[in-house]
């Protein structure tokens, strides 16, 4: 088991480094000068631009720049200081990360709570009105862009309840009730896009398993249908469910960017967009990497969970 975990962690390292290298190289290879990008809106001389390039270390050789950046990722600076506020990037991104992480956690929890029972119900009553409705709603909600859905929701909340997203965010430590009031709508929206994937896979796997020989064997032993479901089918479906939950996590994070913008949550998504529009390049660079690493870590957790729920997975040697 330990070896397997180590192997999985080892796989994350090249991914994180790969992403950081891509981010780093793209920054230099794409048309457009970082110093010029930062100064685009202000009149400046060549000297000022050169001074900025020196200050940012852009005149050093590429590998020195890269190593320096990667090394500072390990410190509280997290790759530099914000050009806008002068704070270390670590402080800014750290605060934002907690908001996004909480939002993602609520979404996943909510989605699992809904998707598993509904998927099970649809699978057991396959072909009925219930099944078709669940499937139809799931497919439909996949076609509604989060952008549009969130605008509509804000509108409805405003019209019906005279509620608009609060300007000030409260963390769960400060005021739990207020925190819940702020987070529930964005989490619902994200769940609407995330849940259908879980629902589909739960239903499909359960249908499969419920028709299998060993489910028949369990029935033959006198086990009731709910018994078969809970004891045999659900554990089996968990494997696929966890896999899909992990695969869709990247999309969930992407959706979080949009929802945070609409609801004014001070999360990583809104942070990175704000930084991009403010040309705060150290923040953009590091925040992009932090998001990537976040998703990678979640996928690691998923893989470990996958190993935990599926007794057939060999920890030592994983065949592709």
């Amino acid at each position, binding site marked *: 088991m330990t070896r397997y975990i180590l192997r999985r962690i080892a*796989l994350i390292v*090249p*991914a994180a480094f*790969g*992403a950081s290298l*891509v*981010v780093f190289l*793209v*920054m230099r290879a*794409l*048309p457009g000068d970082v110093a010029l*990008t930062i100064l685009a809106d202000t009149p400046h001389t060549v000297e000022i631009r050169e001074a900025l390039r020196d200050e940012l270390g852009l005149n050093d050789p590429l590998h020195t720049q890269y190593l320096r950046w990667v090394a500072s990722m390990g410190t509280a600076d997290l790759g530099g200081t914000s050009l806008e506020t002068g704070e270390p990037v670590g402080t800014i991104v750290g605060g934002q990360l907690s908001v996004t992480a909480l939002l993602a956690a609520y979404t996943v929890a909510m989605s699992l709570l809904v998707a598993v029972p509904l998927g099970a119900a649809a699978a057991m009553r396959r072909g009925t009105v219930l099944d078709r409705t669940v499937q139809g709603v799931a*497919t*439909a909600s*996949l*076609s*509604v*862009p*989060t*952008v*549009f859905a969130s*605008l*509509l929701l*804000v*509108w409805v909340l*405003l019209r019906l309840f005279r509620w*608009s997203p609060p300007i000030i965010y409260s963390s769960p430590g400060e005021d739990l009730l207020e925190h819940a009031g702020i987070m529930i709508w964005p989490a619902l929206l994200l769940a609407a896009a995330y849940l259908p994937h879980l629902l589909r896979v739960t239903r499909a796997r359960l249908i*499969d398993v419920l028709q299998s020989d060993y489910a028949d064997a369990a029935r033959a032993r006198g086990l009731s249908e709910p018994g078969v479901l809970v004891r045999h089918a659900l554990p089996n479906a968990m*494997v*696929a469910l966890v*896999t899909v939950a*992990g*695969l869709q*996590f*990247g999309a969930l*994070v*992407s*959706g979080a*960017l*949009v929802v945070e*913008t*609409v609801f004014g949550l001070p999360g990583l*998504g809104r942070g*990175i*967009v704000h930084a*991009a*529009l403010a*040309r705060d*390049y150290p923040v*953009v*660079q590091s*925040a*992009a990497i932090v*998001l*990537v690493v976040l*998703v*990678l870590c979640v996928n690691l957790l998923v*893989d470990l969970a*996958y190993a935990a729920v599926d007794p057939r997975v060999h920890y030592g040697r994983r065949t*592709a």
Partner: protein
Amino acid sequence: MSDAGRLRPEAEERTVTAGRRPAAPRRRPVRDLLRQLTSSGPGRVGFGLLVLLSATALVVIVSYPRDFGSAYWANPAYWADNPRAVPPVWARIFHRDGAVPHRVMTLTEPTETDATGRAVVQRWEFPFDHDAQMSPSSLAITMREFTFQTRPPIISGTLVRPDGGEIRLFREVVSGGRPGESAPYVRHSEEPYRVVARGDGPAGESLAGFYGSRFGAELTAARIRDDFERFAFGRIANGEYEPLAGEYTVRIEVMSSAEDDRLEEARVVVGGSVYGVMGTDALGRDLALGLLYGLPVALAIGLAASTVSTFLGTALGLLSGYSGGRTDLVIQRAADIVANIPVLPLLIFLVFIGGSQLWIILLVLVAFSWPGLTIMVRTMVLQLRQGPEVEAAVSLGASKARIIVHHVFPHTASYIFAQLVFFAPSAILAEAGLSFLGLGDPSIPTWGQILESGFRTGAVFLGYWWWVIPPGLLIVLTAVTFMLIALGMESIVDPRLKGARMWRS
């Protein structure tokens, strides 16, 4: 990442038993797909919608100017005469007061020319009925191209009210000849002479004077400035303000010294409280034009991204599955890594550096969407490789390339085609998300950008529904079209749903 358990062993056996004999009849994959597609309800609806959308997109492509985005959409001067942030014309049914229609009146000849006096006076008259309770949102006069021989013409504009009152809107002299310039002098041919009647200019003074002499009412400068149109199209009766309905006329007079001095064109715009089929945004842009333009763009994004990434994913999957060994390992690890990276943050980052260009956005979408397909195709190839068909081909001495192209790829083709349809809506939604974050390509208007500008302007809080709902619904409609087609093809993608039809060749 895990590819386990996706294709059941039964499916593989079916492949084997339903495998083609060496001399097979010619395949017609496109016709087969169409038949399969139109055999299901969702597939039929989706296909119909796609044909409809494509036809509309074609019309848009043919009828729009090439540089619509940069030269028109992103150019506020072009929309200057339009009312800002007003609902569509048909929204009138929701208003009890009655809405003011948007009127654009253009003349290229004067209504009458009076050459009896010392000067030649050309009168251009623009009569219009105004009978709504609301007042027009603006009054703008535009004159293009003055030509004069010696002395510059004097131009003036007057609003003639139904009650006989006349409000002087402006009085100006066209700039005269400069040293070194010779007659005929031409003025304002490139940039028309434009006057917007406003309360803080001469029009305001004239209106205040009129109210004083006609109604004995004292209008403060601030009230005139804020409510110029309201007072210009209203009156005081029994000490109360009320709108004044009837026939108004805007009269332009051009006084010139020579008879062949002329003004090419004059236009009067009475700003409405409703506009066009889809209303306008805060810059006065006709949303109907922007929404229509967004259609071919959305389809192009969806098709381009899905075609390229399907091609890439398939090629890598075939290579990975058939080559095996080190190539396989490298491709699979790369797929694992790429599949784990969230696209939107990276897109934001790349757009930040490379600028908002549609091709960069498409490139990134493509670069990150191949792994899923690669993994699936590889799994299928691994199963096919052990089948009798490939074995037979190998024993006949066929080359590796030939086996991949002729004996492996055809079996995966219909699955791949269905996958292509799956990719399209996700690319469209991704672009919409990015545009919404303010990082779309500014030279190409898209639905996401229209949503974004609406959101930034506070359309949701101000109740500008016509600015938010149509672009959102259009994104949904396009996505649903592809989803329905994908649903119609579901039996191809998931053979368990409909028996072994997937493998029919």
